[in-house]
């Protein structure tokens, strides 16, 4: 498959580069490249240092998650959602479990809802930390990513205490969650949040106020609101362009119906705004986790569901606000134990679409800044 594609590009590009503009230079970024955030491949045509065209090539991380879901029972499928956006497994699982619950008409217990809220927000923090850290890395500073991973480590440890696994948590269940919170977990969580809050102030000082960082991100990669909507952007990418659209607010689900979220919106629409939205969302998420801990009700953590979970015949679409944007699951059931189809609407995939448009006319070093600011996860793009 790859070779076929290559010869195609070879033909296409040798034509243009031999033609009128002799200075054009073809640069292949990826799939094995330090800054494409995984195995994305960008074929970039350069004139001097300016990008004249860009073609993203995806599919290097395709594992057929949607097809796997069709061949697993609903409960077994949840685990495979972890691998979709591998930086936010909790959110993926919530989306899938939520879709099945919506299809089956289950209203999960309030305690489960709040546990989902707490874990989801922690996961959002972890994902944004990686986003910010790698963004710093893209711009040539190594310290933020180490700091970010130090903080993320705390979240992963908490997930380990919760589910037994740091990364592929497999924690959500249709109808609730797997385990109740362990003893002392909430205290640990509160301590961690206090520490994280301090660390985020530090991170803010290290990156946001930095002249070089500002000069590299502000006014770069501007997306105007119309364009953002036209490309179907969601999440921080959309909110950084001044559009106040957050599924937690606009289409609240689970505990978000009771907990008020202040969506972070910025008007600038540039890379800095996208970075800053993520940074502020971490603060907002910290607040949400605290509120969730305060309001955490008692009671069961799950509804009783049959062993052989058979969602009724029909179809449904359920979307949550993932760390990257709207993560939707389009769930079609034919009444059997296996989903007939489970289509994921991955925010990374949709957000990636705007990259070629954004890159055109920018400098090569801006390309990295722009690509980093989209915060895509190739696991979710290729699925």
């Amino acid at each position, binding site marked *: 498959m790859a070779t076929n594609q290559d010869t195609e590009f070879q033909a296409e590009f040798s034509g243009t580069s031999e033609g009128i503009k002799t200075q054009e230079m073809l640069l292949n970024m990826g799939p094995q490249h330090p800054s494409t955030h995984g195995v994305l491949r960008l074929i970039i045509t350069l004139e001097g240092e300016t990008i004249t065209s860009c073609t993203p090539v995806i599919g290097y991380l395709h594992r057929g998650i949607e097809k796997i879901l069709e061949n697993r029972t609903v409960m077994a499928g949840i685990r495979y959602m972890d691998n979709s956006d591998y930086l936010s497994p909790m959110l993926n699982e919530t989306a899938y479990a939520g879709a099945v619950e919506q299809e089956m008409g289950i209203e999960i217990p309030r305690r489960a809802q709040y546990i989902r809220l707490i874990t989801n927000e922690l996961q959002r923090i972890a994902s944004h930390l990686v986003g910010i850290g790698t963004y710093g890395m893209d711009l*040539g500073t190594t310290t933020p990513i180490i700091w970010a991973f130090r903080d993320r480590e705390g979240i992963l440890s908490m997930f380990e205490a919760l589910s037994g696994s740091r990364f592929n948590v497999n924690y959500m269940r249709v109808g609730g969650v797997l385990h109740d919170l362990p003893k002392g977990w909430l205290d640990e969580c509160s301590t961690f949040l206090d520490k994280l809050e301090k660390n985020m102030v530090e991170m803010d000082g290290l990156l946001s106020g930095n*002249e070089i960082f500002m000069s590299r991100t502000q006014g770069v990669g501007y997306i105007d609101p119309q364009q953002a909507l036209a490309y179907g952007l969601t999440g921080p990418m959309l909110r950084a362009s001044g559009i106040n659209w957050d599924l937690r607010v606009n289409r609240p689900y689970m505990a978000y119906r009771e907990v008020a979220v202040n969506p972070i919106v910025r*008007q600038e629409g540039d890379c800095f705004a996208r970075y800053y939205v993520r940074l502020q969302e971490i603060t907002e998420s910290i607040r949400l986790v605290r509120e969730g801990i305060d309001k955490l009700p008692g009671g069961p953590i799950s509804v009783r569901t049959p062993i052989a979970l058979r969602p009724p015949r029909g179809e449904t679409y359920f979307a949550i606000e993932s760390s990257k944007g709207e993560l939707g699951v389009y769930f079609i059931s034919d009444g059997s134990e296996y989903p007939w189809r489970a289509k994921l609407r991955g925010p990374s995939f949709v957000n990636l679409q705007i990259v070629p448009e954004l890159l055109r006319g920018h400098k090569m070093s801006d390309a990295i800044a722009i690509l980093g600011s989209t915060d895509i996860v190739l696991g979710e793009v290729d699925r």
Partner: protein
Amino acid sequence: MFDFMNNPTVALIVATVVKGALLIVILLTAFAYMTLIERRVVAKIQGRLGPNRAGPMGLFQPVADALKMMFKEQMIPSQARAGIYVLAPVISVVVALCAFAVVPIGNNWSANSGVHSIWDPFIGDINVGLLWILSISSLSVYGIVLGGWSSGNRYSLLGALRSAAQMVSYETSLGLALSGVLMWAGSLSMVTIVHRQLDMGIWYICAQPLGFVIYIIAAVAEVNRAPFDLPEAEQELTAGYLTEYAGLRWSLFQMAEYINMITVSAVASTLFFGGWSLFGLTDGIPILSIVIFMIKVAFFLFLFIWLRATLPRIRYDRLMRFGWQVLLPLAALNIVITACTVALGGDRFWWISGVAGLLVVVVMLFAIRRQGILEGTHFSEVETGKPVLPHSVRLVTYEQEPELEQDEDSAPSVSQPPLARNSNTVQV
């Protein structure tokens, strides 16, 4: 036994060979431990441990690295121009080593500027010392450009091009910034410059703050270190001109970079911080002067590491603009200020150029900041939580009510039976 030492020329040659070999060994050791120190310091800043396995505190890490590098497979890429490809790292490192030849590492052993010995701690006190450093450091661009060009890889080529343009651009500012020092010292010889500072009783940083600031910025750019490390910008160009190099050849390039760093640090401490002198502390004990010099150099090296751990990489066009449009005019201004002070005032009025230079530095700091604000770096606080949709878009907000399509046979019970805590979801 040592009769041949009676012949002054032979003695000079023997002494120089010994001193030169010693200096090369010292520089290589400094390079090796600089890599270790850099990794340890950056690790400390980032809250990590850094390499600490090989030997106590990781002291044998450089040895391990060197051994590994030596026994790596050396290959010549199929598209490379073999000769130049092999030669380029050697050019780099030879040039880097050569630049250090004129730097006085310490005071004369007699502690008397008039009495020279062939064993004095510098290789050669040539009367064009500074010019030698400048010209040799201009040559260092050759190693990088030839290496990048001959690799036959477009990342390498792009990295080499950037590197050439960058080093060349900052070379001019660097040269102009140093001429302020020359006006005060009246000599190009590094040894004389140190002695002139002793005579005047000040370090030239006091008389040349602006020159120093320009020099240190240009020097960071000149040795391709963060935030000016564009030639090897990992994120854009994988590893720039280093992409196709591996093993010992790669470490030769690294060696050149670190030795250049040591050289510019040494030049900075010699020209602006009195070299090996420290308030007359070295008068009696010449060996102390070497220690003092090393401490001063170490301070600048730490500065390089610190910068690397803190700052993101500056963008290429801004880098070039900064070099040509900010540093160069500032260096010219520095020359005019210094020339007026030197020609009209003389040594006693060094503080005039000092205060004026400092003033320019402060003004420039504000100006750059302000220009940034004018260009749009100012970040206004926006009220959050307000819907700001364009008029053409209407979003429907609704309370989500899951519509239930219940089939008789498979719909589970929606009512919630009381469950014990910690129960699993699936009944067993």
